[in-house]
């Protein structure tokens, strides 16, 4: 791949005796949507937290726009982290702030926008994710799970990031709401032309939002390819995962 947006090479991370990432290699092109699939506890979350600088990996390389963030000065790496947005699994909305203050957080705190202007922007982004201005002054705890996800999405795109991470965006939602979120993800990512890295174990969601899919198992990428290639693959890991079978090469540690 030429000039990838994100290039991860031979990434290792262990917590105590437990190896979580065991040599991950991954590249994401500019404007591409990559979905990483894998079971619970295979290190998906750790992978995106390493890329975002929330966790320091033990060894390996993570380049963003060609800039090596591992071992770089925090101040220099911060410029690249600032161009990232993230939709958290549980929403991770700040419960001490109202809905619009959540959406406008990055605009007020970092871009130093006035509160009045930031509120207008926040309402614009809330509309974009299908929420009306009525919810703007509510507290996040007054919203349903699906609405919280939408607010989280609005907050993630409000700062116009280059790269957006989605941590299990459809987990815990009903199938219809899940599809609504999928559509919103596709539309909002395309609209701002960002690269997207999604982790999920929802295959329907993965097929819908991915340009390319990679499968993580035991801290390694065991397969990657386009959605078309996914249909034809004979990779036993992927087949077992898609069929949701307990029989196969993937052993669940009980």
């Amino acid at each position, binding site marked *: 791949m030429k000039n990838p947006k994100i290039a991860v090479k031979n990434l290792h991370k262990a917590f105590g005796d437990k190896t979580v990432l065991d040599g991950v290699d991954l590249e994401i092109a500019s404007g591409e949507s990559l979905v990483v699939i894998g079971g619970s506890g295979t290190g998906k979350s750790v992978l995106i937290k390493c890329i975002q*600088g*929330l966790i320091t990996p033990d060894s390996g390389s993570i380049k963003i726009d060609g800039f090596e963030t591992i071992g770089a000065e925090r101040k220099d790496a*911060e410029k690249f982290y600032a161009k990232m947005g993230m939709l*958290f699994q549980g929403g*991770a909305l*700040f419960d001490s702030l109202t809905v619009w203050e959540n959406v406008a957080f990055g605009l007020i705190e*970092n871009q130093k926008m006035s509160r009045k202007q930031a509120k207008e922007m926040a309402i614009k982004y809330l509309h974009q994710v299908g929420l009306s201005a009525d919810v703007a002054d509510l507290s996040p705890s007054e919203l349903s799970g699906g609405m919280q996800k939408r607010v989280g999405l609005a907050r993630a795109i409000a700062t116009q990031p280059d790269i957006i991470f989605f941590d299990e965006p459809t987990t815990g939602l009903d199938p219809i709401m899940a599809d609504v979120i999928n559509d919103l993800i596709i539309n909002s990512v395309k609209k701002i032309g960002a690269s997207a890295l999604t982790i999920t174990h929802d295959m329907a969601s993965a097929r819908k939002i991915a340009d390319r899919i990679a499968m993580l198992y035991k801290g390694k990428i065991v397969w990657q390819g386009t959605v078309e290639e996914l249909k034809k693959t004979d990779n036993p890991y992927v087949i077992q995962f898609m069929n949701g079978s307990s029989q196969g090469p993937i052993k669940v540690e009980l």
Partner: protein
Amino acid sequence: MLIKYIENFLRALGKPLVGFVSRLGELSLFIIRALYNCATPPFYLKLLLKQMVDIGFYSLPVVALTTVFAGMVIALQTNAGFSSYGAESAVATVVLIAVTRELAPVFSGLMVAGRIGAAMAAEIGTMRVTEQIDALSTLSTNPYKYLVTPRLLAGILVLPILVLIGDIIGIFGGYTVAIYQLEYNAANYINTTINELAAIDVITGLVKGAVFGFIIALMGCYNGYKSRGGAQGVGTATTNAVVASSILILIFNYIITGMIFTK
């Protein structure tokens, strides 16, 4: 057989020791990072003010209640203990010294530790386990500056003010018992109190207040920040914050008293 036994013994000894030392190192790093962030911009003045109101203003009732009864009980006990040596002048002096040097700072510290230390650990701990702290980072906001710094500064600034108010209320408590229950002469009592009032007593209390405020906020933030594993983790963090800050308050109270009043 014997070697195996010794090995197991040493292992049992070593594991908690290593755990303790690594916790200590983690805490030291946390303190250094927190203090560094106190001194460098950006500053969140609004959050600082909010914390000062939370810690200071809303703690007034509990601080007032504890110090007034502390002052009252000291007056009673001094009267009982000194009755054969002319308790009248002793009561005013003992109440003054006990309240300003020890009771107001320690009671304010312990009450605020229970009220605020627990709340801080629970709030920050919940933010940790619901990924709100990670969310702050992804929005390019330093969680230390946004969460820890305002609480530490507010603790250091507000506790001395609470102690000062506790001083006044505690002495007043002693006064009411002396005058209305023990039926001392009010003019003499007030006169003794004013004559015996020394700056060092009050200043000691204020210094203690600042140190206790730092301890409470530090333990609340640290335990919350490092909490892991859902509701149970937050519960543990809250308990640890209150227990650790209460014990540290009593230890540091002794150390500060020792430094100032031992000649």
